[in-house]
């Protein structure tokens, strides 16, 4: 039933895939083990130890931040927030986007028009404007930031899914399912969904990376989470003013973002090639 077209296993030797999985896997493992690696949580403020350069003290291999906290611990622990935001918001947006896209594409008519016009309005709003308004009205924090990202991104999935549904719904297998009286829900989720999930998964990997960057920019603008909870974007912003005197404060979290996003993009690329052997056209 799944019309996934896996090419030969040689693909697994693909450089993109190996590097991607190493980066993402390694970072995810470090974050998962962070509680065990850094029991102090990197939150102990020590003003006497502020802005130590990397390797200056063996206890602080990456140096310390402006409040004398261990930078290594904070970079690793900070990944948790960034990844949480990235993954949860992408998952949420995928779920809403798929349902809206399926319904809109399959039923057409007034429903389609309503959903798509709503999506157009949504796309017309600049993200930062939406973010500032949302956070002003609802408030900041981790959960709200995830909700905000879901609100601003489900549209991409909805449009992608709707497009695929439009091209699939007149195909024979759907027509025959309709002819033998299969219920709509079953057609939507068992016949249509598996045939269009490929590009959606690819979009999602790219979206996770994008969300990590958005979390960073929101926190950077001061719209994000409590600054005493480490997150990559927040650390980047903190270190900005020290760039010329204490580069390590922002360079290491920046590097962490770079490597994670790179890893996710490599995986996404690989997935795209794997799921869409006919060419690099659909995204």
């Amino acid at each position: 039933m799944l019309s996934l077209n896996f090419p030969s296993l040689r693909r697994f030797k693909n450089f993109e895939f190996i590097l991607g999985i190493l980066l993402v896997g390694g970072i995810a493992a470090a974050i998962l083990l962070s509680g065990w690696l850094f029991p102090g949580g990197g939150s102990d403020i020590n003003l006497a130890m502020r802005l130590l350069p990397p390797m200056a003290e063996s206890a602080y291999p990456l140096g310390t931040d402006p409040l004398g906290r261990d930078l290594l611990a904070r970079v690793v622990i900070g990944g948790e927030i960034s990844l949480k935001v990235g993954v949860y918001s992408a998952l949420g947006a995928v779920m809403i986007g798929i349902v809206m896209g399926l319904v809109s594409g399959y039923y057409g008519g007034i429903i389609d028009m309503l959903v798509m016009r709503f999506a157009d309005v949504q796309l017309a709003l600049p993200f930062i404007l939406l973010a500032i308004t949302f956070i002003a009205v609802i408030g900041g924090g981790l959960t709200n930031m995830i909700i905000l990202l879901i609100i601003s991104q489900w549209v991409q999935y909805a449009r992608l899914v709707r497009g695929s549904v439009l091209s699939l719904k007149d195909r024979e297998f759907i027509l025959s399912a309709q002819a033998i009286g299969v219920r709509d829900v079953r057609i939507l989720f068992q016949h249509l969904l598996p045939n269009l999930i490929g590009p959606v998964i690819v979009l999602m990997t790219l979206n996770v990376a994008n969300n990590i960057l958005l979390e960073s920019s929101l926190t950077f603008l001061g719209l994000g989470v409590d600054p005493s909870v480490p997150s990559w974007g927040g650390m980047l912003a903190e270190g900005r003013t020290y760039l010329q005197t204490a580069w390590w404060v922002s360079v290491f979290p920046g590097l962490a973002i770079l490597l994670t996003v790179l890893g996710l993009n490599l995986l996404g690329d690989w997935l795209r090639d794997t799921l869409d052997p006919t060419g690099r056209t659909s995204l």
Partner: protein
Amino acid sequence: MKNKRALAKALAAASALSVSAVSQAGSLTVATPQDPGSWDPIDTFLVNWASLATNVFDGLTYRGPDLELVPGLATRWEELDDGTRLRFELREGVTFHNGEPFDAEAVKFTFERLLGEEGAKGPQRSNYTAIESVEVIDDHTVDFHLSEPDPVLLTKLAGYGAMIVPPGYIQEHGDEHFNSNPVGTGPFKIVDYRPREDVRLEAFAEHWGGAPKLDSVTYRFISEPSTAVAELQSGRVDIVIPPTIPIGMIDTINNHDGIRVVSVPSPTVEAIRFNTQSGITADEKVRQAMIMAVDRQAIIDSILAGEGKVIASFQSAQSFGHDPELEPYPHDPERARQLLDEAGVEPGANVQIDVRGNDATFGEVAQVVAAYLQGVGINASIQPYETNVLLNDIIPAGRTGEMFQQKWGGWTFDYDNTAYLMYHTGERWNPYDSDEELDRMLNAQRGITDRAEREAMLQEIARYTQERALEMPLYSLNALYGVSDRVQGFEPAPDNRLRLTDVSVSE
């Protein structure tokens, strides 16, 4: 075609000539963080309006970097009728940049505009409502009739809404035109304003105080501190005015050849204020305990690199109403724990501190404060807001957490200007508290014309707010200027209103 090209060449040569003539006497470039959008004095309360506009406009009085009030467009003044009438003798032979003469009619026009319909649209009018009417006695004498004595009025006449504007020019061109093509009597005139990019000023040689030493000044709007500092390092900017340079960049500038940081104590103070209505901070003892829990000197020494001073009440040491006798609460975590215990606060109680999200330095300060509070058993979380949201929505509506950041400029250097707005019932910055005794004192001091008596009353108010622990006073900040070594005669202005008359540049 050929003729045209020849003409263009000749023009280019001519303009090159005039450019070199200009640079001989010197031109200066200043980085300022914000474009106020309108240059009309009645439209704004932004310090970055004042830091430029103090070069373009004059008031009846003038206050320079030494903070002494001296004659401006008025050569002398006297208080009559128990302080309800002020008579000003105006300077003669002064003209506006457009050639219009300055006289009593211009003063009358300025204040009628400020207090009338046009002024009602802007934020400046409320500072000057003590003025009931302006009466022209003769061409160079005016009387201000006041509804009640206003002890700070003479200071307020030195800045912002009280800047004298040309009646003929405004009537001819309209307010809209004036916003972007302002005309004043100041030492420089605006010749070119490109919104969000820069403003070019040229010396006004006929200024009554003598021609400025510089020929021209360009103010560039650079909001990002690292960009402003990079421009200073590369020599494309000569002065970076506050509030731009973050504490963390002082070393960056001082380590670089040919530029330095010049700092001066400013009226800007910061505090973490309390929600005195609900939560554990409604209890006076808890508030006192929280203040004692935080070592503010340590914060200044480390995070502020010493560029600040611990304050006992919400005003700086130069403020009128400052009491050198008033000691700040000591740093005493033992006593703090004891007070919390007496108040029945369980260890692990939660409070929230609302801060401005884009204020990097305060973000660090807030985290250290939270760590100190943690030390006495209070869990403080920090909630960043977009600055405008915090100032226009969260604080005035009383929607803050238990504590919130308050930064205050106080350019009048008079505690009244701060205390009234912070503590009087129903004021915008006082969403939680209402104290009859405090209201009484705040109203009473406004009617006192005797300076010493009023100062005593203001000090009494400061002591009262400290006893009630209405806020956690943190520190007064220094104003930080980034200055290139080619700038001569630079004197930092504590209130950011940097007049460039005596500044020159060496090549």
